[in-house]
């Protein structure tokens, strides 16, 4: 615990120092990044210690706040979520030292460093907090510090809008959490996590947790802030938010599950439905996007869906007494939390490299970047294959566990509980196919072919501080793909804790799942060897023969231009057409007209369905309904003093009477 307390101090020092050195050029960046990196390094040791099997550590100090205690606990569940937080935050801080340099002179860059330290500290506190008041305070600090990071480029109208959406969404979620914790603590009169328990109605509490944490995690239809806020934020902040901050929602949900007593099958069913709709709609909306970071943001919704699906399958396993299904489902979901942090962090950082080098995030403006930015391209390729769930990378391992859990339930039971499993299998298959379509589009159009405009033509590879983090994350993707079994078997205490299953059962089932994953690791190593051998064989064959280059075959037309290439929109068109009912893409076309036609134009834009059809009308109605209260707000101080006096008087009378 001492190590973690010391990291809080380092985050604090980093935050203050970055402001103190605000006028000292790069010193501010070094101070801010130094705070985050040193703090994370310091904190990772106790965390790894607990993951390796050391007993949980606690620290409890009395606090003046009613019902509040400064109660921190580092248990296996907390430790597991802290690993990606420390990893991604420190890499993002390193990345930021170079990324933020272009803003120097135009904007103050000390505040983002200040808030980055606060954000990292508050995420750590959210995970460690073992008291509801402390948890909610950390939760709010996290929301506010990330709000200030999202609105870094507040001179842009869209960024301010995005920040506003994010703020409203976050607080709506917190409102649900507040009610949930009050209901949980009512029974024992304490808000320490040890004493939270359910007297009755665990279903309502589950629903409150689902909404409250679901907003942060980005479950559909609560995801509306995600595709706005992630593209607006600076890229290293998007990486932190998407890779780890939204996972605090998953953490919260898991933590609350441990208070709620025996799991019920319908919770699992609800999570499966949420998971499938988030997964499928997330990837469909991603396919229709033209902005690279917006596309990635929708993929976060998709991956959160896969995580929810794993949890749902696991809960159904627990409630039907299928211990292997429970263990593999939860293990898959938890591993996907880690995996998504790795590849999504990687992809957002690479997206940052691209917009840094070309000043655009429009996929259809780019092309041919592989020759110009080879390291960015290679790491992006690894991230793209990983997020599409392809072996030999990590995304496949976690999806495999969820598949395996679902197939196992089909074999083991004859009850109606196989229906959600079949939905999960076919849903995962569809998500896999669509994700492959989406990432061949993103990688292919951005990095391959010829550059579609001058910015892409003159792009240069970025510096080491921006490449290094991506390289680390890419190697993480490969390592988990090969040695996922090690990670899975280390999850034992954590899964026992969440599912409440017997330790021996969990150990047996994890060993069985780990066995399959170890096989996958070995066979994927075979793929890599086979690829190398075949490539070598081809080189040998071609070494003695004539190898030449020629223009791309374009059916006899030997002078293809960059503008003739297939675009991202046309690539995704057959799929977006098939799902046009859900996507409701707006298209404007000024076709070729007349004998001497002018320029023809085509625009398409896919808005968020839920934002337009659900939340806008809803907030509009609420706004109109409470407009009647407007006369109360006159803006005169005297009037407000009167209100306060009246309320106090009423409370006093109520108390006496």
């Amino acid at each position: 615990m001492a190590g973690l307390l010391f990291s809080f101090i380092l985050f604090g020092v980093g935050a203050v120092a970055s402001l103190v050195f605000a006028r000292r050029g790069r010193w501010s960046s070094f101070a801010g990044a130094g705070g985050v990196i040193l703090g994370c390094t310091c904190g990772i040791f106790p965390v790894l210690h607990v993951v390796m099997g050391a007993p949980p550590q606690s620290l409890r100090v009395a606090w003046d706040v009613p019902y509040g205690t400064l109660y921190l606990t580092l248990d296996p569940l907390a430790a597991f979520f802290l690993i990606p937080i420390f990893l991604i935050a420190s890499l993002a801080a390193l990345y930021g030292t170079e990324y933020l340099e272009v803003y120097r002179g135009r904007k103050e860059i000390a505040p983002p460093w200040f808030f980055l330290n606060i954000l990292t500290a508050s995420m750590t506190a959210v995970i460690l907090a073992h008291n509801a008041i402390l948890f909610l305070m950390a939760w709010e600090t996290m929301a506010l510090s990330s709000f200030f990071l999202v609105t870094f480029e507040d001179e842009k109208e869209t960024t301010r809008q995005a920040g506003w959406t994010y703020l409203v969404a976050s607080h709506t979620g917190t409102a649900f959490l507040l009610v949930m914790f009050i209901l949980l603590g009512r029974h024992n009169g304490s808000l320490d996590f040890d004493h939270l328990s359910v007297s009755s109605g665990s279903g309502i509490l589950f629903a409150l947790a689902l909404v409250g944490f679901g907003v942060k995690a980005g479950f559909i239809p609560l995801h509306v802030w995600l595709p706005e806020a992630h593209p607006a934020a600076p890229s290293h902040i998007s990486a932190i938010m998407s890779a780890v901050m939204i996972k605090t929602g998953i953490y919260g949900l898991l933590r609350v599950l441990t208070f709620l007593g025996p799991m019920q099958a319908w919770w699992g069913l609800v999570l499966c439905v949420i998971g499938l709709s988030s997964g499928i709609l997330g990837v469909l909306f991603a396919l229709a996007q033209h902005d690279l970071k917006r596309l990635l943001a929708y993929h976060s919704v998709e991956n959160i869906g896969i995580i929810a699906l794993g949890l749902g399958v696991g809960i159904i396993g627990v409630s039907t007494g299928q211990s292997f299904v429970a263990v593999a489902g939860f293990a898959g979901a938890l591993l996907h939390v880690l995996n998504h942090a790795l590849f999504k962090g990687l992809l957002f950082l690479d997206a940052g490299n691209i917009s840094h080098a070309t000043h655009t995030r429009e996929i259809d403006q780019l092309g041919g970047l592989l020759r110009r930015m080879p390291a960015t391209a290679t790491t992006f390729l690894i991230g793209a294959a990983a997020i599409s769930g392809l072996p030999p990378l990590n995304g496949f391992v976690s999806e495999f566990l969820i598949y395996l859990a679902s197939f196992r339930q089909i074999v083991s039971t004859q009850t109606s509980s196989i229906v959600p499993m079949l939905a999960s299998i076919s849903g995962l298959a569809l998500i896999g196919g669509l994700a492959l379509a989406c990432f061949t589009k993103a990688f292919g159009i951005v990095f391959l072919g010829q550059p579609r405009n001058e910015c892409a033509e003159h792009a240069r590879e970025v510096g080491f501080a921006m490449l290094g983090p991506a390289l680390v994350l890419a190697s993480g993707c490969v390592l988990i793909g090969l040695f996922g079994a090690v990670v899975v078997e280390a999850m034992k205490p954590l899964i026992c804790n969440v599912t409440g299953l017997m330790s021996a059962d969990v150990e047996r089932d994890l060993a069985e799942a780990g066995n399959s994953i170890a096989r996958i690791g070995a066979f994927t190593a075979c793929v890599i060897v086979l690829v190398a051998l075949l490539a070598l064989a081809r080189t040998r064959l071609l070494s003695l023969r004539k190898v030449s280059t020629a223009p791309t075959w374009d059916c006899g037309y030997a002078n293809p231009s960059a503008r003739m290439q297939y675009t991202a929109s046309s690539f995704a068109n057959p799929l977006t057409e098939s799902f046009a009912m859900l996507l409701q893409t707006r298209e404007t076309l000024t076709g070729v007209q007349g004998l001497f036609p002018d320029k023809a134009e085509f625009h398409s834009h896919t808005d968020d369905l839920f934002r337009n059809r659900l939340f806008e009308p809803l907030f509009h109605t609420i706004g109109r309904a409470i407009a009647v209260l407007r006369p109360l707000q006159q803006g005169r101080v005297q009037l407000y003093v009167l209100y306060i006096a009246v309320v106090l008087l009423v409370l006093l009378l109520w108390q006496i009477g």
Partner: protein
Amino acid sequence: MIAGSTIPLIIALTLAPLMQSVISRTKAIVAGRAGQQIAQPYRDLWKLLQKGAVYSDTSTWIFRMGPVVTLASLLLALAFVPFGGFHSLAAFSGDFIFVAYLMALGRFFTVAAALDTGSSFEGMGASREVTFSSFAEPALFLSFAALVRYTGRLSLDPVLAAIGPRAWASAAPVLSATIAALIIVYLSENARIPFDDPTTHLELTMIHEVMVLDHSGPDLAMIEYGAALRMWLFAAIIVGIAAPWRSGNRWVDTLIGLAAMLTLAVATGLIESSMARLRLLRIPQLLLVAIVLSALALAF
């Protein structure tokens, strides 16, 4: 669990090109032509291996990775498929998921290689490929689910071993619906009529062939051989369900399997001769039929 036999793999590696040869011969006979010799695919592969290569000047190392990754992933995937009386080379719990994703890996790189040329034709083919495979994946996985639920096994080799003549007596509806779904997926994934016409000469209408327009020499040989292996893989699974007779002698069983493969190839040729390819817009609908069929197999 590498205690299986290398025989299924060896048979697949040597005889896979024959399937395509039988199909085109069948089509030729139905059309009243003499058709190519049975060994023609081998000659083509040999000829391509002797050649040099021409690469598009737009392309990068991704383009050269395409054929290599596709072939490597198929070679590995075949290790999990049993044949005749022989067990597959390798098996583990959930291996069919791995096989399906290995093929997806190959697809990813084929599509990336197509986009690497910057040709709009190849982009078009790539776009169609990812679209149709997105619909084929759920059908494939639901068919697996039906087989897994019926046999109670979680690995391809035991699943196919558990299906015998008795299974057909007791569960004919399940197995025939599954086979129907798998045949649709087999035709779609292997770019056959009614999904795609491998012999068409108009780039605009192709799906799979147009993606590999720019490959030549040994690269093209790897692609052609990979296509043959992919077809063998699907066909071997279908035959494993459809012709489960076991004589007791593994070599006789293998001969039965080969005869069934031959029948499937001839049937494919007859399908190709008797119908036109579908309009591209209709293809997802046929794949939805496959999804419905496999869901039906689960409902029985």
